[in-house]
C-alpha cells in the first residue's frame, strides 16, 4: 500500500482546475481558513499557503460532528418507535490539510474501532480524501516534532503536496485512495523530480524538539500525585476550549432531546474532561472533583493512557489548545518541564 516513491509535479493552476471539477461534481471541498476548515464555494477562496498557522479548529467536526443524532424516537401511549439515522456518505476532499491535522483521523480511528466500531465515524472517514500540505511555519506553541510528527510528515495524508516554487507543487501519492482520486486527473501531472522536493523538505525549519515522549510517559506514571497538578488546577478555569479545538480529543455525551411530547432524538455531543460534571455520578459522588485531577487526567490520557491502550500519543502537536487557552496554559510547557521540581 505504499506509493511513497510515486511523485509528480502539478502546477497551482492545474490543482485549482481539479478543485473546480471536484466542486462541480458536488463533492465537499474543505480548505483551511483563519478560523476553521470551510467548504469552498469558489476556487478563489483557496489559499494554498504553507506558511499559515493551523486554523483555530481542525476538520474533526466533519468526521465526528459536535452534535449529531444517533436515533429518533416516537413515543405513543404504550409503544416506542425507533427510527435509525443514515450517515450520508458524501465525499469530502480536504485540500491543504496541515500535517498536524492529517494525523488526527488515524489516531482517532483506534478508539472508534476497538471491539465495537462506530459506523458514524467510519462511514464519514471512508469518504475522506486528505490532501496534505507541507508546513513551513511554526510559532511558539507548535511542537509536532516532539510527538513524533513533523511539518513534512505525510502520515495520514492520501496525497501530499510540497510547494516547490510559487506555482508548482510536488505531489506525492501516498495511499490507494489517493491514487484513485488523482487517476482521472492524470493529464495534469508532470513527472516528478524527487531531488527538488527533497531539497525543499530538508530546508524546512523544524520546531525544536522540546520533550521526549517516552520520558514524559515514564514521568506521568511515577508522578500521579505530583504537586504540579495542583498548581495548574488552580489556574485552569474548567472550560473545554482545549478539548474542543483539539484535533484528536474524542470524548462525547449522549443525551435525549424532546422536540414535542412524543417525538425526539438521541444526540451524541462533544464533551470535555475538564468540565466538572463530566464524571459526576447521579449520587453526587465525583471521582475527579477538583480541577487539578481533571487536568491530570487530560495530560495522562494524551501521553500515557492512550499510548498504553493503542500505542500512539493522543496529540498531534498542533498547539491549538495552548494558543487558544484563555489563561495561557501551555501543554507543551507542562510536559516539557515535567521533570523540573515545582
Amino acid at each position, binding site marked *: 500500500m505504499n506509493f511513497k516513491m510515486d511523485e509528480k509535479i502539478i502546477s497551482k493552476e492545474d490543482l485549482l482546475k481539479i478543485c473546480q471539477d471536484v466542486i462541480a461534481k458536488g463533492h465537499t471541498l474543505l480548505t483551511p481558513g483563519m478560523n476553521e476548515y470551510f467548504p469552498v464555494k469558489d476556487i478563489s477562496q483557496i489559499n494554498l499557503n504553507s506558511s499559515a498557522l493551523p486554523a483555530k479548529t481542525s476538520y474533526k467536526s466533519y468526521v465526528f460532528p459536535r452534535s449529531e443524532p444517533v436515533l429518533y424516537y416516537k413515543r405513543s401511549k404504550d409503544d416506542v418507535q425507533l427510527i435509525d439515522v443514515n450517515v450520508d456518505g458524501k465525499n469530502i476532499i480536504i485540500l491543504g490539510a496541515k500535517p498536524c491535522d492529517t494525523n488526527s483521523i488515524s489516531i482517532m480511528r483506534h478508539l472508534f474501532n476497538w471491539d465495537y466500531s462506530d459506523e458514524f465515524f467510519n462511514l464519514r472517514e471512508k469518504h475522506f480524501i486528505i490532501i496534505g500540505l507541507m508546513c513551513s511555519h511554526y510559532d*511558539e506553541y507548535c511542537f509536532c516534532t516532539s510527538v513524533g510528527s513533523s511539518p513534512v510528515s505525510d502520515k495520514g495524508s492520501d496525497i501530499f503536496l510540497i510547494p516547490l516554487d510559487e506555482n508548482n507543487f510536488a505531489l506525492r501519492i501516498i495511499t490507494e485512495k489517493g491514487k484513485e482520486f488523482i487517476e482521472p486527473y492524470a493529464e495534469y501531472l508532470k513527472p516528478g523530480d524527487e531531488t527538488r522536493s527533497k531539497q525543499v523538505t530538508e530546508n524546512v525549519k523544524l520546531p525544536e524538539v522540546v520533550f521526549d515522549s517516552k520520558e514524559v510517559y515514564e514521568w506521568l506514571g511515577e508522578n500521579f500525585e505530583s504537586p504540579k497538578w495542583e498548581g495548574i488546577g488552580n489556574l485552569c478555569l*474548567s472550560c*473545554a*476550549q482545549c478539548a474542543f479545538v483539539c484535533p484528536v480529543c474524542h470524548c462525547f455525551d449522549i*443525551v435525549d432531546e424532546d422536540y414535542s411530547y412524543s417525538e425526539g432524538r438521541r444526540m451524541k455531543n462533544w464533551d470535555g474532561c475538564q468540565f*466538572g460534571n463530566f464524571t459526576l455520578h447521579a449520587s453526587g459522588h465525583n471521582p475527579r472533583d477538583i480541577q487539578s485531577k481533571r487536568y491530570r487526567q487530560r495530560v495522562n490520557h494524551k501521553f500515557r493512557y492512550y499510548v498504553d491502550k493503542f500505542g500512539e500519543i493522543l496529540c498531534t502537536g498542533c498547539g491549538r489548545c495552548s494558543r487558544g487557552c484563555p489563561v495561557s496554559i501551555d501543554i507543551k510547557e507542562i510536559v516539557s518541564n515535567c521533570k523540573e521540581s515545582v
Partner: protein
Amino acid sequence: MEELREYAKELLEKKEVAAVIGYTQVSENRTKPIIITDPADASKLVFNEYCLNNLSVYLTKARINAMCRTKDKIMKLAICAKPCDVHSIVALIQENQVHRNDIVIISFNCHGAVKDFGYEFSGENLASKCITCETHKPLYFDKIFGEEKETPKASDAALARIEELESMTHEERFEYFNNEFDKCIKCYACRAVCPLCYCQRCITDKAIPRWIESSSHQRGNFSWNIVRAFHLSARCTGCGECDRACPMDIPLSLINRRMAMEAKKSFSYVSGRSLETPTLVGSFNEKDSDELFM
C-alpha cells in the same frame, strides 16, 4: 515594576495575604496569570499593556479561597487588577460574592491594553473596551502603581457595528445572530472566563429539567447564547474576556455592550462603578417605567 514586586513580596512575607494573583511574562508581547504564594516568586510579577486577563475571575473560585484559610488565621488575597478589572471586583462585592476586606486590590494607572496576544501595542490594536474607557485610574484600590500615560486614540468600531445592526430589519438581525451563534461549539470558555459567571452550577449543567439543550446545534446554541447574554445584562462590566476566550470568534461582547447601553439609557446605571449602590437587577424602584406593560 520593581515597586510592584517589592510590595507583593512584602505582603507575602508579612503573611498579610495568602497569595498574590498577578501576571507574568511568557514572551515578548504575551503574559499569563500566575498565583504566587512564595515571596521568592514575587519577582515574576509584571504589569504592562499585554496583561489582558481579568484576574477577578479567580476571586470566586473555591480552591483559591481555600488557600486563604489556614489553621490559625484567615488571610487576605491580593489581586492585580487593571482599572477595568476593578469594575468586575466591585460588581462581585455588590453581589456579595467577595468581601472588600478580604482582598487587597493592587491596581495600576492604565493607558490601555492590546486586543489580543501577539499584537503590538498601538491605537490600531487597542482592545475595544479601552477605546471608550473613562477610568484610567482605578475607582477602588489599596495600592496603585504605574504612571499616567496618554491612551492611544482609536475609532469605536464596536459601537458602529451595534448601530449598523440596529439599522437592520429584525429578520436580518436574527439571521446574523443565528449564523454567529451557529458557530458556537459550547466549550463554555465564555462562561469560564467571565468573573460574573460565578454560579456553582450553571443552568446549562442542570438536567432535571433540561431547559437549555446541551447539544450545540442551532437551537441549543441560540438558547445558550440568549441566556448567557441575559444573565449578564446590566451586570456585565465590559471586560471583554468572553470575546477573547471564544475560539469561534462570536461577537459576545457586542450583545453585552448593547445591554449595558440599555442600562445606561433607561436606568442611568453602569455596572461595577460604585460600592454604595445596589445592583440594578438585584433591586427595584417603584417608580420604574411601566411603558412595556399593557
